[in-house]
């Protein structure tokens, strides 16, 4: 849905609420914090430049737009998925300036000038990224909805591990641990798979990690 449609739908909902009883309104309304002139003022849009999978984009966005909605609703890059939209499931994981983040909690305007890699940007010249190929080989999914986030997360995980990052599973945080299965599981805990394909996801990541070491 584009911003205009969103606004129209909000306006319709507000109109509906106004026609219902006062008691209903009191229950349905969120707290009246900051109900000020800004609500009625026209929305100032913000100019945002992003480099996504090597391509440059210039957009004018409502400042409320998250990176996830920018990708999905404005640029038709629908590989990144909206699961919970509150930073709990990891389906929206993308890589921004080399680091994996939840795109649902990132305002696009705050990322002006940033370089982004999404699931669409991992394959090179039609050849699957090694992590994508490993997920296919190990059947690291069932329904597949969380998979783009899982794969982006796993790709970043390997970079973090190569940079010597510890995790909560690391016995001595001053050391750079081997990427054991418990380390992989801990480092992937921000990506939920409700089909519970976890054993195969871990196997896929382990295989790519071992390949990197050879």
């Amino acid at each position, binding site marked *: 849905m584009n911003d205009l449609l969103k606004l129209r739908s909000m306006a319709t909902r507000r109109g509906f609420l106004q026609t219902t009883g006062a008691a209903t309104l009191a229950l349905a309304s969120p*707290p009246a914090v900051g109900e*000020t002139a800004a609500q009625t003022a026209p929305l*100032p849009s*913000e100019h945002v430049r992003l480099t996504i999978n090597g391509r440059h984009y210039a957009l004018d966005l409502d400042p409320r737009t*998250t990176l996830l909605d920018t990708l999905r609703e404005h640029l038709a890059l629908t590989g990144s998925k909206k699961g919970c939209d509150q930073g709990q499931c990891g389906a929206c994981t993308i890589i921004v300036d080399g680091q994996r983040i*939840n795109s649902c909690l990132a305002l696009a305007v705050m990322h002006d000038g940033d370089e982004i890699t999404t699931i669409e940007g991992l394959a090179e010249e039609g050849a699957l990224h090694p992590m994508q190929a490993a997920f296919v080989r190990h059947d690291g999914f069932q329904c597949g909805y969380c998979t783009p986030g899982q794969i982006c997360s796993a790709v970043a995980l390997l970079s973090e591990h190569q940079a010597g990052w510890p995790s909560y599973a690391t016995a001595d945080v001053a050391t750079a641990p081997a990427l054991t299965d418990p380390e992989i599981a801990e480092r992937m805990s921000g990506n939920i798979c409700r089909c519970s394909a976890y054993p195969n996801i871990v196997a896929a990541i382990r295989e790519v990690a071992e390949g990197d070491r050879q």
Partner: protein
Amino acid sequence: MKPFRYERASEIASACASAAQPTVKFIAGGTNLVDLMKLQIEAPTQLVDITRLPLNRIEETAEGGLRIGALVTNSAAAVDMRVRRRYPLLAQAILAGASTQLRNKATTGGNLLQRTRCAYFYDTTKPCNKRVPGSGCAALAGLNRMNAVLGVTDDCIAAHPSDMAVAMTALDAVVETVAPDGSTRAIPIDELYRPPGDTPHIETVLTPGELIVSVLLPPPPAGRQVYRKVRDRASYAFALVSVAAILDVDGDRVRAARVAFGGLSYKPWRSTEAEAALVGALATRAAFDAAGIAALRNARGYGHNDFKIPLARRTLRATLTQAAGLS
């Protein structure tokens, strides 16, 4: 999400000046604020984006400590080798919190100021004195399993959710701020959070527009540092109880001890009672149990969270056992 004006701050003074207005908020990582804005629990009319301010460095201090910039991400703090070697407690605590994706965005200052995850603070159909002052507390007689047992009142039993702040409390960290008038403050972290009293919506001693610019870690105290977190699943969950402990054992006696709990109060709960019980005692299970009894003496359960009181005692014993090298 309510509409808001966006301002990208290029200097601290202008950022503070903008945020001195009551409906204007700073934003950095946004991992908590954006979520709350989507739910319209937070509805600022303007956001001041501070992420381009030069507050993202970790520096040595002359005293032998570290000064962590407010915009240092949780990941950057936890992977810094100086933090890992000298303050392993802090690295462990940060790594115990959230997920890598969130830690890559969340900042040091923002972590300190994150809001409670009390279910009734998030549920806008229920009363909550923190969200709507004067509306009541649905958690008191509700599903309060995650709520606080120490230092709270019947107006609000919300628990502070941070792991990082628990370790910083045990480390005697100092929160450094700049106010809109240019004045600076150094606030001991234990004094940053205000007791809920009958104004649980006012959570810290910070004034409007006052910006956290850094957190100062004094030189690490002697002793072994351990952070232990108990939660409903092995990773990516808030603490039921956590313990940050630093134990300095001389021979078989405790020379010095620091104890702070997470998940038990409106703030990271430093237990001077437990510390007093430990200092001079033999480093034994009996002494660790006595410290637990002292720490939880004034605790009060609200039904579903009664279990936190014995769990905190046992978690303290396990943490101290590990810190004493007995396990």
